[in-house]
């Protein structure tokens, strides 16, 4: 994508800003997407994104700042012009010869994007539509999608790093909307992987569609959720969004370095119930949030964030790591060349515990079983979080009772982590897209079934 001599010249020019570190991130990304609405192909689109971001670190008054410029004119003249526009007078750090980093691909796509005809993909989506729409007369709409992305990146820096990586991901979704007496409720299942078109072999689209239809029909018939403070059993898989929002974001160096996290300065301290061990692991083969190398060229790794309730590690990128005096953890990510990278999550989960799902339900006289979670958000400085429950049931007398809808869970991350009083076996992960200051990146969230002894449940009930 760029020659060594051009890269050398660009980094050297960028360092004339007085910076002590410069980096080039160059990418070409191809995306294809097909969406089927109510059984017809509504739209199929293909997009190429291509561009380069140049980043320079400048030390100033004890703090580190970063200059970032990006363009999609990646000609040698354009990049040199961009690098020079960042430069001011200053001593120039010398760029050593590049050492090409061997990057072994642990996430190999077997069926490459483009290897299956659009019409065959559309046929698989159509089967999903047919299964969902025939599931129940209450199902009034369906939406089924396929999307793939192939991102080719080169990361080159003034420390002599030259690393290239290819990232192929695919995601499918099967969604259904049920209508009853003017009320509409939707449910969707949308698995993804670091894989190609074998995604269709990994997941049964018709089964996903039926699950979505069943959820939508259950929810549309459900009564409103009672509100107040109660024990909440949070389902496995996407239930891990509670940890992602309530704790994961606050363990990113992005907020820790600014002291803007409730967990800043707490390494070695108990921040969660002793039942909680939490991990961010970017290496798991074929997973949606996995990477061979992060967007600074650092190998991803398995980072244990919390072990038996004790805070062990943050997720650290190069720039914030300098401020914190900590080494990078392979956690630096960006949506594209349009964003400077920063510490982000990859595949984040709470590890399996010793209880069974049945133990947890039978130990709960009254509470909410939040089986499927929607999205949510958090304010890292205060730890205030909120997230929406898409499928929930009341627990009465230690048994799962009627379905309820419209519940929101709110709380403070630091308190909620301490209030986890049961953790089941059988950790499972699901896929999401996490938005933060370096853009939207694919991440896995995961957990076994857990119980929080007190949470505020909001809703209209």
């Amino acid at each position, binding site marked *: 994508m760029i020659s060594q001599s051009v890269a050398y010249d660009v980094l050297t020019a960028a360092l004339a800003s007085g910076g002590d570190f410069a980096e080039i991130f160059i990418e070409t990304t191809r995306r294809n997407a097909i969406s089927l609405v109510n059984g*017809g192909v509504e739209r199929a689109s293909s997009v190429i994104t291509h*561009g380069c971001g140049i980043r320079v670190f400048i030390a100033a008054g004890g703090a580190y700042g970063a200059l970032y410029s990006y363009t999609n004119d990646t000609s040698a003249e354009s990049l040199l012009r961009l690098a020079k526009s960042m430069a001011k007078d200053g001593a120039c750090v010398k760029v050593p010869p590049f050492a090409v980093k061997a990057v072994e691909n642990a996430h190999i796509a077997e069926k490459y994007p483009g290897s299956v005809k659009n019409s065959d993909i559309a046929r698989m989506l159509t089967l999903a539509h047919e299964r969902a729409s025939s599931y129940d007369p209450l199902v009034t709409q369906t939406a089924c999608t396929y999307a793939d992305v192939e991102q080719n990146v080169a990361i080159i820096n003034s420390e002599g790093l030259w690393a290239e990586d290819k990232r192929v991901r695919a995601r499918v979704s099967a969604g259904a909307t049920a209508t009853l007496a003017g009320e509409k409720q939707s449910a969707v299942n949308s698995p993804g992987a670091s894989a190609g078109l074998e995604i269709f072999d990994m997941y049964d689209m018709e089964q996903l569609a039926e699950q979505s239809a069943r959820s939508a029909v259950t929810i549309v018939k459900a009564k409103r959720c009672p509100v107040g403070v109660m024990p909440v059993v949070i389902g496995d898989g996407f239930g891990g969004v509670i940890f992602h929002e309530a704790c994961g974001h606050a363990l990113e160096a992005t907020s820790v370095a600014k002291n803007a996290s409730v967990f800043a300065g707490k390494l070695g301290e108990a921040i969660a119930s002793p039942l909680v061990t939490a991990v961010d692991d970017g290496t798991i083969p074929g997973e949606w949030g996995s990477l061979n190398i992060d967007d600074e060229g650092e190998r991803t790794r398995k980072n244990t964030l919390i072990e038996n309730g004790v805070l062990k590690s943050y997720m650290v990128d190069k720039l914030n790591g300098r401020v914190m005096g900590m080494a990078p953890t392979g956690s630096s990510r960006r949506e594209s060349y349009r964003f400077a990278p920063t510490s982000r999550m990859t595949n984040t989960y709470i590890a399996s515990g010793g209880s069974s799902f049945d133990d947890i339900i039978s130990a709960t006289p009254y509470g909410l079983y939040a089986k499927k979670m929607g999205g949510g958000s958090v304010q890292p400085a205060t730890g205030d979080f*909120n997230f929406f429950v898409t499928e929930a049931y009341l627990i009465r007398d230690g048994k799962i009772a009627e379905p309820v809808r419209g519940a929101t869970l709110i709380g403070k991350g630091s308190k909620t982590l301490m209030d986890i009083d049961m953790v089941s076996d059988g950790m499972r992960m699901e896929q999401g897209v996490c938005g933060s200051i370096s853009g939207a990146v694919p991440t896995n969230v995961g957990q076994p079934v857990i119980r929080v002894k007190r949470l505020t449940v909001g809703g209209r009930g």
Partner: protein
Amino acid sequence: MNNSIKRSVAQSAKNAGFREWEVSFSETGSFETRFFNREMSQYKNSRLSSLTFRGVCLGKTGYAATELMTDSSIDEIIRKARANADITDGDAETLYKGADSYPDAPAYDEKLEGVSDAEKVALCAELEAAAYSADERVKSVDYAVMSTQKTSFTIINDRGLDISHMANSAYAFVSARVESGGETKVDGDFWFDNDIDALNVQEIAKNAVSRAVSQFGAKPVKTGEYSIVFENMAACSLIGAFASAFYAENVQTGLSLLKGRVGERVFADFINIRDDARMAASPANVAFDTSGVPASNKSLVTGGVLKGFLYSLKSALKDGFAPTGNGFGNGTRYTHFYLVPGSEAISSVVKNACDGLLITELSGIHAGANAVSGDFSLLARGFVIRSGIICEPTEQITVAGNFYDMMRDARNIGGDLRFTPGAARVGSPSVHVGALKVSGE
């Protein structure tokens, strides 16, 4: 767009068998700086261009886009657009041949281009300093941001359309973290415009800090029903979440509860909702949508009665209506979608609400608001209203209801219209919506 790109597109479109084709070409230059700890922590600039292709072949439409402007990549995406068109079942789209005239939509201020990067950096530093000095309880200014953007957009098709639009804007944002007695509170404020003379960094900083400080001592209220006043920006986030119910494409696919209700009284009689493509001095003003259809100012709800929907060229063709100039990118979007203000000051709205809650911020909109059913259940914070007076702050509560019921039962509206920033803006004054369910202690 230069002529060699045009020729390349025309040739590839012909080779791929497209009968009709259209390309839009956009160029964006942006600048952003951030301060942290009284030092510049980020300095970012960019130059971007992208080309979007739309081709019609045998009544089917294919799409593709590229940021790589080589002949081979243009040819690649046009071949993909053809493969995409082949499987599309959607209704036939036509390309727009252009209007006789386009409205004047001022969105560009030459003066802004005269502001140097160094001056923008100085303004950002001033913004951060103003936040630090606004109150001694300011522990940190986590974000002080100053950014500018300039965009130009051209659409060309083989039916003779060739039109361009240019816009620029500036955005300032500051977020202050305040601490007192072991409590931490965060709040921020923003400014968005292209008239740089209207930027008052002191005012933004003062608002951000006073909003944060006012939350000290906040506690959840008891679970129950409360009469709710949404402050203007909280009302914007709710209204924005349900704007898609006014998109004709959602009405057509059965994803809007407003289907079949044009001419019916759907909301309280003082509720008027508009989508205006042109307002006095807004960087989001547009003369046409991305299909080249003139963008219009239109009433969607007048006196509580539903008047119509927002149409792209495609959805208008399906219903046999005239497009409203709301076809942007892949679908429909609003331009300035807003609740028309009344004349009362917010103090008067609060006074008339008597007892209840003033909600100043809602979080979790993307997950907790169901755009189809209208149901919402959202993390909120604000103040208790007692005997018409704003009293102690409250937090860690949820406010839940249904958008359609809420707008039907609304009680009162303020005159303090404010818009969100960005290319598609939502506006609202403060609204007294009546009783909603609150979950707290």
